[in-house]
């Protein structure tokens, strides 16, 4: 006991006593114990009220009397009080008195024993009180944290397209907030992105990770970024954001607009399940990668898998929480059982039955983990590809440029022109086609007119490469020659006229040759002229083939 006492500071006592011989002997005894210090020694107050006032909360107090002081019966409940008396205690007093007692007839060893036990229990209670305080501080803190996390998730999700008509979801957080993330967004080409992610750790990591990941997901979906680039970006962000021991399992997929193709990346998630309308499990899309936030960008593997899916197929994405669902018998649901459920309820309308079965399996057992399940039907998404708005502001113009050796060698003429003039209102929605047409006639003028290249080279083995190497070489050696480009927009007709002229060699335009080329579907060159003939109106060559002029009708869909 001495060794125990030395480990802690001695307990400071306040003593009330009746000034009897017994009391003074007891005080002397108490003062002799190394684990006690008598801090104050006071006479017994005359009234209960006075006694109560002098008792301080949790201050160890000893009351000593030859007889039992009349006050003790009405003193407050406290294990911090000890009564020492020589008198026999009646059953009534013993029941009423909430503190400890020590009878005067004990041996000194027993007194020491009792006192040291009393001290120990006093210390434990103090510790308990301080633990209680800390705990309530932590709990408040956690509660604030929950609020914050809820806010963040609500924000992160506000653009989520869970209303997409061909997806059914069950999103059941184990706690107030969710460590799972199920995101859906349309792409501008009409395809659909779906992400199912599961962050490790409690509230904070998912919350801080969810915000940048969901922002990136929605922004990149709008820009029609590929799955591989998306996961690379997510991984980059999360690697920087999350400490080493935290990560994010993720299944990210894109369903093509026609509903026939799935491109996916699975990092650390359970296998997504592709099943037919009859419930047959056709594919298990298992994880080939580590979860996000672990691997540095340089080592990150972004390679995706593409899969043909049949009409009527569906795909089930889900987090760990689903297959690790505990039954009341404390058995895991397991992958087999999930597959079985999908086999039994493959139809869209039976999704609620499937949920009831899960509910039934779980019974009264609380959720241990967040549980998210999404079933997406593989069918035409029905999402309209976004078209660039065709601005019919009227703006007739004529643009011409005459490019000489230096300009031809140094400038990417077609790109420069199309990216500037493509901003004029009538042309905006047609940039890609205008580029193709202008590139065709400009390259013709440069390659055949000025550089004297023969398309026939392209027909040889490796001909394409040879041709473009030759082009490069001849262009750098070009001594003179110029190309004039004129673009004229006629607002009445809504047509753009192209006119491109060079001062080089004559070039024989033969429509038969073009026809022949164009009908040979597999010939790799000469397609440009064929395209030109199909897209252009009023196509005409003049000046021995040095000058070409045609119009392109902007009324057709961009």
């Amino acid at each position, binding site marked *: 006991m001495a060794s125990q006492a030395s480990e802690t500071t001695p307990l400071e006592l306040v003593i009330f006593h009746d000034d009897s011989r017994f009391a003074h002997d007891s005080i002397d005894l108490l003062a002799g114990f190394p684990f006690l210090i008598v801090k104050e020694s006071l006479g017994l107050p005359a009234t209960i009220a006075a006694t109560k006032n002098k008792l301080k909360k949790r201050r160890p107090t000893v009351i000593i009397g030859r007889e039992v002081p009349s006050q003790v019966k009405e003193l407050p409940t406290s294990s911090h009080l000890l009564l020492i008396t020589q008198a026999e205690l009646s059953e009534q007093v013993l029941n009423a008195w909430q503190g400890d007692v020590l009878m005067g007839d004990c041996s000194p060893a027993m007194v020491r024993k009792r006192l040291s036990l009393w001290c120990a229990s006093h210390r434990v209670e103090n510790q308990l009180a301080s633990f209680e305080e800390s705990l309530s501080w932590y709990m408040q803190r956690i509660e604030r944290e929950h609020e914050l996390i809820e806010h963040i998730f609500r924000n992160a999700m506000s653009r989520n397209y869970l209303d997409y008509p061909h997806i059914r979801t069950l999103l059941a957080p184990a706690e107030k907030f969710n460590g799972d993330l199920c995101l859906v967004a349309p792409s501008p080409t009409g395809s659909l992105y779906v992400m199912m992610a599961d962050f490790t750790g409690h509230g904070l990591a998912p919350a801080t990770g969810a915000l940048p990941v969901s922002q990136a997901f929605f922004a990149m979906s709008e820009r029609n970024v590929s799955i591989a680039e998306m996961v690379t970006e997510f991984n980059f962000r999360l690697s920087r954001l999350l400490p080493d021991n935290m990560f994010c399992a993720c299944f990210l997929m894109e369903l093509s607009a026609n509903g026939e193709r799935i491109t996916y990346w699975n990092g650390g998630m359970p296998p997504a399940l592709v099943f037919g309308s009859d419930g047959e499990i056709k594919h298990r899309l298992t994880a080939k990668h580590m979860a996000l936030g672990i691997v540095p960008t340089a080592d990150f593997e972004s390679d995706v898998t593409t899969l043909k899916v049949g009409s009527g197929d569906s795909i089930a994405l889900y987090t760990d929480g689903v297959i690790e669902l505990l039954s009341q018998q404390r058995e895991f649901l397991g992958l087999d059982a999930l597959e079985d459920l999908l086999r039994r309820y493959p139809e869209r309308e039976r999704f609620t039955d499937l949920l009831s079965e899960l509910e039934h399996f779980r019974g009264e057992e609380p959720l241990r983990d967040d549980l998210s399940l999404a079933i997406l039907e593989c069918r035409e998404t029905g999402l309209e590809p976004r078209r660039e708005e065709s601005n019919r502001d009227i703006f007739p113009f004529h643009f011409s440029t005459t490019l000489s050796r230096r300009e031809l060698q140094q400038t990417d003429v077609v790109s420069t022109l199309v990216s500037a003039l493509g901003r004029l209102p009538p042309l905006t929605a*047609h940039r890609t086609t205008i580029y193709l047409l202008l590139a065709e006639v400009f390259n013709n003028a440069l390659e055949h007119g000025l550089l004297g290249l023969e398309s026939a080279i392209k027909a040889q083995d490796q001909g394409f490469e040879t041709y473009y190497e030759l082009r490069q070489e001849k262009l750098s050696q070009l001594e003179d020659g110029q190309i004039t480009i004129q673009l004229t927009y006629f607002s009445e007709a809504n047509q753009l006229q192209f006119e491109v002229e060079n001062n080089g060699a004559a070039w024989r335009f033969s429509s038969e040759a073009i026809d022949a080329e164009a009908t040979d579907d597999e010939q790799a060159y000469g397609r440009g002229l064929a395209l030109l003939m199909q897209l252009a109106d009023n196509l005409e060559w003049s000046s021995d083939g040095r000058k070409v002029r045609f119009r392109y009708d902007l009324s057709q869909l961009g």
Partner: protein
Amino acid sequence: MSVTRHLSSDGKELTISIHGKFDFGVVHEFRRAYSSLGDEKPVVYIDLRNTEYLDSSALGMLLNMRKAIINQVESVAIINTNPQVKSILEISRFDKLFKIE
């Protein structure tokens, strides 16, 4: 980095993406992208989601590619075409030779 290639780890899909301009400037890169196909007769996807401009040499390169690999692959699909590119490919009757999405 205007042409990127991903061969899936099971060797069954090869995805080739072209960023920005698809023209003779990427002729070598593009050829390299389909130069090794593995032994699994992959499906080849040409992903044009990031292709803003293309010219007729791109069409030629696509046809050359098709000729070069058609016997070693399962099929070739051109995917994620924007509406203008799609209509150009259709006018060129590429829909007879490639699956176009």
